[in-house]
């Protein structure tokens, strides 16, 4: 597994951060909004958002109408690596179990 996947899983190791990902999956939000939703003080929220950004899961930007506001959203393809691991692992076992079935039922 790669360092990127490692960082991602590290970012996801905290329940508040997982909840933040869920909320951002519904729609983009500001840090203040997220902090209120999660019942966190702004400094704690900043730390969590930094971990999520470093984990490659979340990106931030400014809405067109207001450069002072920072809006956080889920990064496209953030979980692509994880999905790839899942898909490959599934393919591996589907393949091996098929081979196992053939072996067992050949009555060897």
């Amino acid at each position, binding site marked *: 597994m790669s360092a990127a996947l490692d960082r991602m899983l590290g970012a996801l190791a905290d329940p508040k951060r997982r909840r933040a990902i*869920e909320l951002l999956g519904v729609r983009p939000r500001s840090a203040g909004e997220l902090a209120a939703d999660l019942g966190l003080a702004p400094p704690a929220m900043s730390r969590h958002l930094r971990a999520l950004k470093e984990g490659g899961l979340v990106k931030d930007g400014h809405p067109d109408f207001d450069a002072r506001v920072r809006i956080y959203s889920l990064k496209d393809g953030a979980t692509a690596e994880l999905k790839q691991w899942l898909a490959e692992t599934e393919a591996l076992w589907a393949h091996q179990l098929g081979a*196992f*079935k053939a072996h067992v039922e050949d009555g060897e």
Partner: protein
Amino acid sequence: MSAAVIVALRVAVSPEEAFTAFTRDIGRWWTSHPLFQLSRGGDGALRFDPAGPGGRLVTRFDDGKEWEIGAVYHWLPGERLSFGWRLPSFKPDQATEVDVRFEAVGDETRVTVEHRGWDAVPQKHVARHGFELMLFQRRLGEHWRGLLKGMEAGL
């Protein structure tokens, strides 16, 4: 429970026979596949060594080098087999886990493989609950449900 890859199928033998064939014959039925081989040199010859509780799953590559894939955690003949799963490409602190269950279905056996990859989270002390709530897993959940539905035809 954390989310995992789950693959199942049914074999036309008893749970005891399936367990014995799975463990004793793994070197015979396991087949290397170019798309997802265990190492660049293929999969080698797998074996449980020693067979039984407290053993290990080991593979011997064509060049004679041995690699311990993982330790056996559960060895319950006819019921359950679980073992660690680490490939040469993994970092030392990264481990995944494979859990194989054998359940009688009439005079056949359903073999279910569950491969949990979430245990690679570096913070080992962190409780790993709540993953199933996550967005990408909701998306994946659709996928698994479809997968298992498709399998039910064969189960």
